[in-house]
C-alpha cells in the first residue's frame, strides 16, 4: 500500500487513545506509536477541529471534482468521524485487517466522501487518490465497497443494513474473546427502514455492549424534514424502549462527542446509541440545512465559495 508522507500520519496518529483511557496491551501498541509522534502543541480538541476542517475541504473538492455525490450528509457527520478516526478507534492504517482493530461501519453509505477523506488522512489511502471519487475503476466507488477499499469494513449504500452487520461483528468478538469495539454510523432518515429496528431489538436482546450506534441526526432527508417525510419522534425514547443506553450530544461539539464515546465504553450489558444532533451541510453557509445538497455536488463556483469559508 502507498505510504503517506510522514507528517500527515503524525498530525493524526498522535491523537489516538491515551494510555490512561485504555491500559490494555494491544492499545499500548497504538498509544506508544502515538506518544513517539511529534507533539503539535495544540490541545486535542483544537487539533481535531483542524482535522475536521480539512475533511470538510476534501468533501467539497471531491464531490465538486466528481460532479456528483452527497456533500450534505457528509458534512453533518464530520466531527463524529473525526473523533472516531483520530481519537477513539484502535486501528492500524499499515495493517487494515489487524484482527484486534476496532470496527467502523458506515451504514449511511452515501457519506462515502467523508469516509474516504478520513481514510486518506489516517494513511489508509493516498490523499492524492481522493480526486478519483466515483470514477470508473476507482477504489473510491460511489458508495463504499468492502472488496476494493482498505479500511472499508462493509459494502453499504442500501440503507438500513449496517447495524445488523455490526451486531454480527460484535458477537464474533464475544465468541472469540476479543476486546475490539464496533461503531456503526447511521443517518436519521435511514431509521425509517424497518431493519434498523429489527437490529436495535436484537442488539439489546443479545446484551451486546461492545457496539455503539451513532445516529447523525441532521433532521433532513431527500424529500424534506424528517418530521414531514416520516416522523421519527420520540426518537431517543424509541432507542431507550428498545433497550439501548442513549446519549444525546451536539454532534459538532468535539468534547461532547468524545465524552459520549467514553461513556459508551463504561456501559455494560447493553448497546449504546449516541444521537448526535447535527446540521446538514454543516460548515458551508449556503449548504447548511439545505436539502438540495443532499445528493448534489457543488458547482465549481460553489466549491470555490465553500473552500473560502473553510479556509
Amino acid at each position, binding site marked *: 500500500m502507498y505510504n503517506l508522507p510522514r507528517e500527515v500520519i503524525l498530525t493524526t496518529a498522535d491523537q489516538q487513545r491515551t494510555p490512561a483511557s485504555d491500559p490494555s496491551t494491544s492499545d499500548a501498541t497504538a498509544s506508544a506509536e502515538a506518544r513517539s509522534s511529534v507533539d503539535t502543541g495544540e490541545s486535542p480538541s483544537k487539533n481535531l477541529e483542524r482535522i475536521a476542517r480539512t475533511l470538510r475541504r476534501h468533501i467539497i473538492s471531491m464531490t465538486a471534482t466528481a460532479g456528483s455525490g452527497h456533500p450534505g450528509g457528509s458534512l453533518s457527520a464530520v466531527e463524529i468521524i473525526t473523533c472516531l478516526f483520530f481519537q477513539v478507534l484502535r486501528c492500524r492504517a499499515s495493517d487494515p485487517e489487524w484482527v484486534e482493530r476496532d470496527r467502523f461501519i458506515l451504514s449511511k453509505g452515501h457519506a462515502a466522501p467523508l469516509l474516504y477523506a478520513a481514510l486518506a488522512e489516517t494513511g489508509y489511502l493516498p490523499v492524492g487518490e481522493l480526486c478519483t471519487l466515483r470514477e470508473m475503476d476507482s477504489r473510491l466507488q460511489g458508495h463504499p*465497497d*468492502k*472488496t476494493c477499499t482498505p479500511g472499508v*469494513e*462493509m*459494502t*453499504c*449504500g*442500501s440503507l*438500513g*443494513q449496517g*447495524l*445488523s*452487520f*455490526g*451486531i*454480527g*461483528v*460484535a*458477537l*464474533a*468478538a464475544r*465468541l*472469540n474473546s476479543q476486546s475490539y469495539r464496533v461503531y456503526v454510523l447511521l443517518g436519521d432518515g435511514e431509521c425509517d427502514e*424497518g*431493519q434498523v429496528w*429489527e*437490529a436495535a*431489538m*436484537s442488539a439489546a*436482546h*443479545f446484551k451486546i455492549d461492545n457496539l455503539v450506534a451513532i445516529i447523525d441526526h441532521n433532521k433532513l432527508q431527500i424529500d424534506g424534514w424528517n418530521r414531514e417525510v416520516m416522523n421519527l419522534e420520540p426518537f431517543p425514547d424509541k432507542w431507550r424502549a428498545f433497550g439501548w443506553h442513549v446519549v444525546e450530544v451536539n454532534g459538532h461539539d468535539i468534547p461532547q462527542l468524545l465524552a459520549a464515546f467514553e461513556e459508551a465504553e463504561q456501559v455494560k450489558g447493553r448497546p449504546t446509541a449516541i444521537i448526535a444532533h447535527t446540521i446538514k451541510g454543516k460548515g458551508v453557509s449556503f449548504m447548511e440545512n439545505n436539502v438540495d445538497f443532499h445528493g448534489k455536488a457543488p458547482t465549481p463556483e460553489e466549491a470555490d465559495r465553500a473552500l473560502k469559508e473553510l479556509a
Partner: protein
Amino acid sequence: MKEFSSTREAYGKTLLALGKENPDIVVLDADLSKSTMTQFFVKGFPQRFFDCGIAEQNMIGIAAGLASSGKIAFASTFAVFATARCYDQLRMCVAQPHLNVKVVATHGGITVGEDGLSHQSIEGLALSCALPGFAVIVPADAVETTQVIRAAAATLGPFYVRLGRPKVPRVLSHDYRFVLGKAATLRQGFDATIVAIGTMVSRALEAAESLSQQGIDCRVLNMSTVKPLDVEAIVQAATDTGAVVTAEEHLEHGGLGARVAQVVARHQAVPMAFVALKDAFASSGTSEELLQRYGLTSAEIEKAVMSAVSRKKR
C-alpha cells in the same frame, strides 16, 4: 422397498457433527429451529446459536457480520423467507462482499403443501442464481444433503442450499460422493437425457424405467449444483442423446430448465422440454395432490421426453 428420509433432518444432524469438529461454525435461525432442524445444533452449542426471531433481514446481516469476522455462518429459515424476504440483504451483505454465509433453506417448492402459496417458494432458485458468486444447490435426498452441507462448510463463499419439507426416497447409494459443480449420472442412456433436481430426481428415475420398457433409454443426471452448472455434462448429454428434458419443483422461468437451456443453446442445440411450474401460484393441498395438479410427476416427465425425442432431426 424405497427408503424415505428427511433432508432437513440430515441437515440438522450434519450441523451438529460439524459443530463438534469446527468451533468456527455458527448457526442462525428466524424462529423456525424446530422445523429447519437447527434445533440439534442449539442443544449441542447454545453459545454458537443465534435465534434472530421473525426478522430474516436482520438475520442475514448478522450472519454476514459473523462471517466477515472468521465464522462459518449457517442461516436457516423456510425457503420463501430465506430468499424474497431478505433479498437485498443477500445481495449487499453476502453476495457482493462474497462472505462465508451458508443460507440453508428448508420447505422449498410446493411440497410444503397445506400451508399454501405464502409458504411455497417457487422462485427461490431464480432469485438465488441471480446473485453473483453464490453457489446454489438442491440435494436429491438425505444422503446427498449430508455431503452438500459438509461441502458448503468446507468451501469459502456464499451458498444457497434448498431442502424440502416432506421425507423423500433415497436415490443415491451410501457411497455416493457429492462434488460441487458436478452432475451425477444416475442412469446411462443414449436416446434422451433427463436433468433433474431435488424431489424430481426420484420421479425422473421412475420415468426412465418406464420409458426403457417402451424402448427409449434415458440418461438421468442429478444436477444438484444448479449454479455453477456442470456445463460439460450437459453438453456431453446433448451430444450423446440429442434430446434434453429438465425436471424441477420450481417455476419454469429462471430455474434449472432455463439455465440448462442456455447451455444447450450456446453449445449443442438439441430439442428440449421442461417439466416445471407454470407462471402461477399454487394451491393448498397435500404434497402428492399438488405434484399431480401441477404436473410434477413421472408421467409428465415421460410425456416431455417423448415430445423432445419426437422433435429430433432424423
